[in-house]
């Protein structure tokens, strides 16, 4: 499927070239469940971004989104903020061909924009410029760990249930919540219409946490320690935060980590947003 789309994209690109202007390709990085003012430093790392953008004809055509993705995906500070920054980037750089790279819940936010094009008058112009979305470990079907976090933050009292936890994006990524949104508001999952632009997922399948190994240390060993526990919370195929089934639930599976990474290494949930095991080169070569 991806090959077929590439051919179509190439034909379109050729047609554009034969026309008046060459496509201006850009790449946008959309982070996961967190609030950022400097996601390049705090989330993706500069080394990773600088490596990936070398695949652009003009490496300056990139944007790192900084929004509050602790909100519900449709919130003005989430999808609205992402749309605003994408629109500004498109306008400032004259982008006609946009590849969006998302991590984790960033995939849900982009799927919200593409599934609800009439929600915001800025959405259609953004969608029409997207070539495809490369979704790294997207939480398309939620995660039981979000349920665990919410259970640990909710107390029954004589007066009812007190909501003690304010991260709506975590609330939204509970399994039954995502099932509801996938059924009624989001496209791309089984039995639902296709998205207007292709959504390709990269799936992390396992966690290695033995110390002093490359697989445990890329992305931080402390993170890998926690992942060993969280992986037990999940199915046998998971990246420590998301089951493979969730990462694969929407769009097309581009590849599972071991199919393409150096030495067939696995990508845990933190490693899939870093330049671990050649992932940055794979993404660079896709631009």
């Amino acid at each position, binding site marked *: 499927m991806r090959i077929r789309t590439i051919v179509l994209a190439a034909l379109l690109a050729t047609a554009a070239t034969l026309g008046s202007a060459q496509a201006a390709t850009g790449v946008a990085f959309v982070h996961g469940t967190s609030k950022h003012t400097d996601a390049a430093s705090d989330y993706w790392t500069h080394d990773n971004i600088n490596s990936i953008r070398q695949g652009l004809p003009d490496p300056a055509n990139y944007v790192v989104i900084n929004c509050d993705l602790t909100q519900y995906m449709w919130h003005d500070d989430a999808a609205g903020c992402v749309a605003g920054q994408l629109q500004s980037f498109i306008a400032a750089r004259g982008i006609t061909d946009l590849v969006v790279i998302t991590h984790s819940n960033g995939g849900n936010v982009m799927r919200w924009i593409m599934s609800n094009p009439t929600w915001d008058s800025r959405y259609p112009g953004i969608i029409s410029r997207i070539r495809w979305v490369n979704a790294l470990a997207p939480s398309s079907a939620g995660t039981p760990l979000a349920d665990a*976090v919410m259970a640990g933050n909710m107390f029954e009292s004589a007066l009812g249930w007190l909501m003690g936890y304010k991260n709506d994006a975590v609330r939204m990524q509970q399994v*039954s919540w995502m099932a509801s949104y996938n059924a009624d508001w989001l496209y791309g999952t089984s039995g639902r219409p296709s998205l207007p632009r292709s959504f390709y997922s990269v799936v992390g399948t396992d966690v290695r946490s033995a110390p002093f190994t490359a697989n445990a240390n890329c992305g931080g060993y402390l*993170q*890998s320690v926690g992942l060993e526990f969280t992986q037990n919370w999940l199915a046998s195929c998971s990246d420590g935060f998301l089951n493979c089934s969730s990462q694969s639930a929407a769009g097309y599976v581009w590849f599972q980590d071991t199919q393409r990474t150096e030495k067939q290494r696995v990508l845990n949930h933190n490693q899939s947003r870093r330049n671990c095991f050649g992932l940055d080169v794979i993404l660079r070569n896709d631009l």
Partner: protein
Amino acid sequence: MTRQTITLATLAAALALAGAVHAQDATLLPAARGDVTLRGLVTDAPATPPSVERAPVHFAWALPDDAGAITAPTPYTAVSREYWKDVDGAALARGVTIHTTAPGALVLISPGGGDSRGVAPGALQVRQGGRAVAARDAIVALAPQAALEAATGTSFAPGALGFRLNPALGTGAFDLQVADARGRYVVHVREPDSAVALRVENPVSAYRTGDRVSLQASLDSDTSRATLGDIGGMLVAPDGRDFPLRAVRTRGGIDLQAELPHDASSVPGLWEAHVLAAGDADGAEVLRDAKVAFEVAAPTARLRGRYIARSDAGGQLAFDLPVEVGSPGRYEVRAVLYGTDRAGALAPVAVGHAADWLGRGAGALTLVFPPEVTRDATAPYELRQLGLHDQGRMGRLEYRERAARVASRPLIGR
């Protein structure tokens, strides 16, 4: 309206007439089983947020040739192998009993905020059969809050501690003791390898205020005889209101029922059904809790009246859909256009959306399918999976699996 606007409007009307527009005027197909249509409307729904888009927007895209079958929204079934307890610090300091049905249960102890003390790994003791088990033999995969947050990028409760009971300890009852516990805690037990699961099926993906919720519950086991004992729970609205779920034994099992209130939540988000069950599997006590989320929308608008299907000489197809609005807001119609392919079969061709701000009374939304998205498809056409959404209040109001059929290219001039 300015002079310039009037001139543009007149020009647009003239162009439409000159564009060899053809149209078909008809009513929507009768609602079928599984469709959702509204009988009445509310006029006093909570106001939409001021930031809601006001501009009319429509958008359509072609579906790929290999798009799979498109189906109606499917019911969700929660399958739970977990439960959680709300305990106070004094109880946890004395020891709280958890029941397990499979080796290697996972436990997450979360302090309840305020002055609740965090759980230090060294303060945790596990007892089995009244005897303390040495820490190195009791626990594997210890994960304090910092490690959990580093792993997931998500905030856990301050001072939370996750761990896995050593599978070598087997199953049954364990006492968890945290000597210096103070405040309140949630003790969450998850048994991913257990054969015993609570299933809660929600047959409807979206409700309207005033509807009856009915969930089907059962306790299943792959390897043993499982019997459901006590079961109950509550519905929780996004604004914090809660409503008891009433357990009713039926021929097929147990239904959990509740009436939704007529006033919608003013806080965005989904409603949740929390189901708490206790049962027995081959003589062993089983505890299970499950959660099901669903949307509840106030009936603020509906599709009602005659629609018009239009086509023009350029190959564009459009559907003017009548909307009756009870509460002003931003409404959207979305549908899949099916067309006839070269083999004579109906196949999904394109998706169309249209939204606009509509005031109370009669309005309309127009789905537009340009020729580049309808491609080679010809009549007969059908409009399927037609939904009406209230965007400002986040609700799916109506749904029709088959909504309209255009047997031939629209013929009636407009």
